[in-house]
C-alpha cells in the first residue's frame, strides 16, 4: 500500500492511499462531527456533518466516503462548514420529536452531544412533529420512530455484521422509516436474532432496551470494533 501526502488545515500529513479522509483527519486529533459514520460498517455519506472543503473542488465532500489523494489540501472547520453543520443539526432536531427531557438516552445521546458541541442552542425551523408510532412488540427492544434520525447504522450493522438484515428502510424522503421485516411488528420478525447490535449502535433514543427510563439508556459503540477485531484475529474458537 503506497503512502500519500496531503494537507489538512495547512498541516502536512501522510496517509495510506486506501484511507478515507475522515480517518486521517481524526488521526490528527481533529474533532469532526459525524452521526451516520460507524467504525466497523460501510459508510453512507448521509448525515453530511463531516463535509470538508477540498481545494480545487467546487463541491463540499463528505470526509467519510472521500478517498485521500496525493497533494490534496483539506479544510475541516471553515466558517461556512461550521455554519452548515449547525444548520444540519437544526434540521435533524426539527424533523421528528426529540424531546430530550423525556428521552431514554438523555445525557448519552450523540445528537444531543453534537448539538451542544456545535452551539445549537435553538432551532430556527418549524418543528415538524409527525405522528409516528413506537414498536414495543419485541421482547427486549423498543423502536421509537419519533427519535430516529435515519442514519441507517442499525440497518447496516444488522446486514453487515449480524447478517440478519431484519432492518431496512422503507419509503423515501421525509416518509422514510426504519422497518423490521415486511414492516411488521418487530416481535413477529423471525429473521431477528435479538442480538441487540442495532440498539447499541443507535446514536439516539430511537432504539433502546425495554424498561429503560429517562436517561438510563447508555450505548456501547466500541463493542462493534471489539467483535470485528476478534472475528478477524479468530480470538474465539467456537
Amino acid at each position, binding site marked *: 500500500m503506497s503512502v500519500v501526502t496531503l494537507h489538512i488545515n495547512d498541516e502536512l500529513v501522510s496517509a495510506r492511499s486506501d484511507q478515507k479522509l475522515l480517518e486521517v483527519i481524526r488521526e490528527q486529533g481533529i474533532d469532526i462531527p459525524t452521526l451516520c459514520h460507524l467504525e466497523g460498517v460501510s459508510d453512507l455519506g448521509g448525515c453530511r456533518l463531516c463535509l470538508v472543503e477540498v481545494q480545487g473542488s467546487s463541491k463540499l465532500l463528505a470526509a467519510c466516503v472521500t478517498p485521500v489523494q496525493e497533494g490534496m489540501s483539506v479544510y475541516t472547520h471553515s466558517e461556512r462548514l461550521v455554519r*452548515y453543520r449547525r444548520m*444540519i443539526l437544526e434540521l435533524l432536531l426539527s424533523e421528528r420529536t426529540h424531546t430530550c427531557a423525556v428521552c431514554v438516552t438523555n445525557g448519552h445521546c450523540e445528537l444531543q452531544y453534537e448539538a451542544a458541541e456545535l452551539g445549537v442552542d435553538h432551532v430556527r*425551523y*418549524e418543528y*415538524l412533529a409527525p405522528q409516528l408510532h413506537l414498536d414495543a412488540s419485541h421482547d427486549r427492544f423498543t423502536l421509537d420512530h419519533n427519535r430516529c434520525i*435515519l442514519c441507517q447504522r442499525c440497518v447496516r450493522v444488522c446486514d453487515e455484521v449480524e447478517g440478519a438484515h431484519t432492518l431496512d*428502510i422503507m419509503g423515501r*424522503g*421525509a416518509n422514510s422509516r426504519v422497518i423490521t421485516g415486511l414492516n411488521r411488528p418487530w416481535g413477529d420478525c423471525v429473521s431477528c436474532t435479538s442480538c441487540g447490535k442495532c440498539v447499541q449502535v443507535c446514536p439516539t433514543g430511537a432504539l433502546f432496551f425495554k424498561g429503560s427510563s429517562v436517561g438510563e439508556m447508555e450505548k456501547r459503540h466500541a463493542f462493534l470494533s471489539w467483535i470485528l477485531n476478534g472475528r478477524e484475529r479468530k480470538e474465539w474458537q467456537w
Partner: protein
Amino acid sequence: MNRPELQAMGERERERQQSYRCRLLCCASTPCLSSGATAVIETLKQFIKERELDANVLVTATGCMGPCSRGPLVTVQTRGLEDVVYEHVTPELARDIALSHAAPEPKALDRNLLAADSPFFAKQKKVVLSNSGLIDPERLECYVARGGYGALAHALREMTPVEVCEAITRSGLRGRGGAGYPTGLKWDLVRKAPGTRKFVIANGDEGDPGAYMDRTLMESDPHRVLEGMAIAGYAVGAEQGYIYVRGEYPIAAKRLENAIRMAERRGLLGGRVLDSSFSFRIDIRIGAGAFVCGEETALMASVMGRRGQPSPRPPYPAQSGLWGMPTLINNVETFGNIAPIIDNGAEWYAAIGTDKSKGTKIFALAGTVATTGLIEVPMGISLREIIFDIGGGIPNGRAFKAAQTGGPSGGCIPAEHLDTPVDYDSLRRLGSIMGSGGLVVMDDTSCMPDVAKFFMEFCMDESCGKCVPCRVGTVQLHRILEHITNGSATPRDMETLQELCVMMQETSLCGLGQSAPNPLLSTLRYFREEYQAHILERSCPAGKCTMDNVPPLEQGADLQRRARSTTSDAEVS
C-alpha cells in the same frame, strides 16, 4: 447482415415508398393518440381498403411531428405536390384528405392546413428529430431507408474506438441530460478505464414535469437511440447496454423492445454486429416512478434492482458503475445526436449552435403559449424566438411573465431576459439550467411563490431521504413557502429561505438536492417584490393564493375574530 446488404435494404424500401402516389403520415405518439389519432388511422386504413386505393395510397403511423396541441396531425407527401400538414384531423377530414390527395390530379384541402413556412417549422432545425414524424417507428426498413445504421457501419469499418471518441469530442456535443458535461470526454474516460466488462446506459428516466423529449425520441425513432448506443459501445469497449425507460412511457418501451428485436434479427445488434467482431446487446429496464433515478448513481442502483438512492461521487460511474464496472451513462437525446455526427462529420455538427454549446436542442414547449409541442432548435436561439415565433406568443391577450426551464432543477426566467441566447452557460448565468429541455411558459396569472412551492413540493416528494439537507431541507422550504402563500409568513422567513437554499445547494449528496432550491432562488431573484407583497401586505398580486392565515403573533386576535364571526352567524340563523 453486412454493409452492402444494409444499403440494399434501404434502397428497396425507398423504391417501395416512391411507388405510391401519396403517403399519409399520421402521428401516433402519445399526445396525438390521446386526442384521437387511433380513430383517424383506423378510419383511413379502412377507407383505403374499401375504395381500393391500396396501390396508390400508403398510410403510415409515425412518430411526433411537433405541434402537439394541434393534434391529431397528418402529414401528406404527394407526388408532384409540396408536403402539407393537417391539424386537428378527424376521421371525416381524414377521408377527405385521402380522396383529394389520391385523386389523379391531387389537390390539397383548404381546411385545417398548417403552413409549412410558418415560423413553427421554419425556425427549427431538425438533427436528432430528422426522422421523427416521417418514418414508421415500428419498421426497421423505414429507418434504414433514411440512412439508418449507416453511421454504425461506418464507425465499425472505418474508425477505431479512439477515432470515434475524438470525433465526438471535436463535435463539441455536451450531455443533453442537463448538466452539459462534454460527451466526448466522458466516452474517453470510460474507454480508458480498466475493467473486464463495461456497460453503456441510456438514461430515459425523464422525470421533469413538462418535459417529454426523450419519450418522443424513443417513440418516434427508437433505432436512432439504439444506433447511438451501439456506436458508444464500440467506442468505449462495452458489450452490454441498458435503456432505462420511465415507467410512465409504456409505448416507448414497447417500441424500443420491438426495435431491439428487429435489429437483433437483422444482425444490427447482438453478436457480431454487421459481420464485425463487435458484439453489443441492449436490454430495457423499466423505471418504477422515482424522479431521483434520473441521477446517474441512483439510476444504476435502480438498474441493479435496488432502492434508487444516489451514492457519493467519486468514484464516478466511468470508473466504477454498474456492478463496479466502468459505465457510460448518457441521456437518450445525447445518444440521438451520435449517428448524425458520425454521418455528417464532427465539423458539420460543430458549425451548428454557439461557441460553447454546439448542435441543436429539443425542447418541450408547454404552458400558456399558443402552440405547444416538441421543437428542435439550434443552440443560441433566443427565448423570445422560441416563445413568440415558434410558439406563437401568449394566448388570450395575457402578458408573458416567466419561462421555466430545467424543471425542478431549473429556474424561472423573466421577461427582461427574453433575448438571452439559449445555451448551457447563458441559462446558468440567469440562475436556471438547460435541463433536459422542458420549457414551460407562464402568463401573468401565475403566482411565483406558488410556482416555487409547486416545485419544492415536487422535490420534497421525490427526495430519496438519504441525506439530511435534502430530506428535511425540502420539507422546511416547502413549509415556509406554504406560510408565504397562506399569509402566515414573517419577514424573517425570507432570510431563512435564502439561507436554507444556499446550504442545500452546497451540502446535499446528489444533484437533486443540490439543484432543488434553484426554482425558488430564481423566483426570489426576479420576483422578490411578489414575495414581499405576500409577506408585508399579505396579498397575492396574481390573485392565486388564498392568504387566509395569519402570522403566529396575530393568531390570538384571529382566533377571537373567528369565534366572533361564528357566533354572529349562529345568531343570524
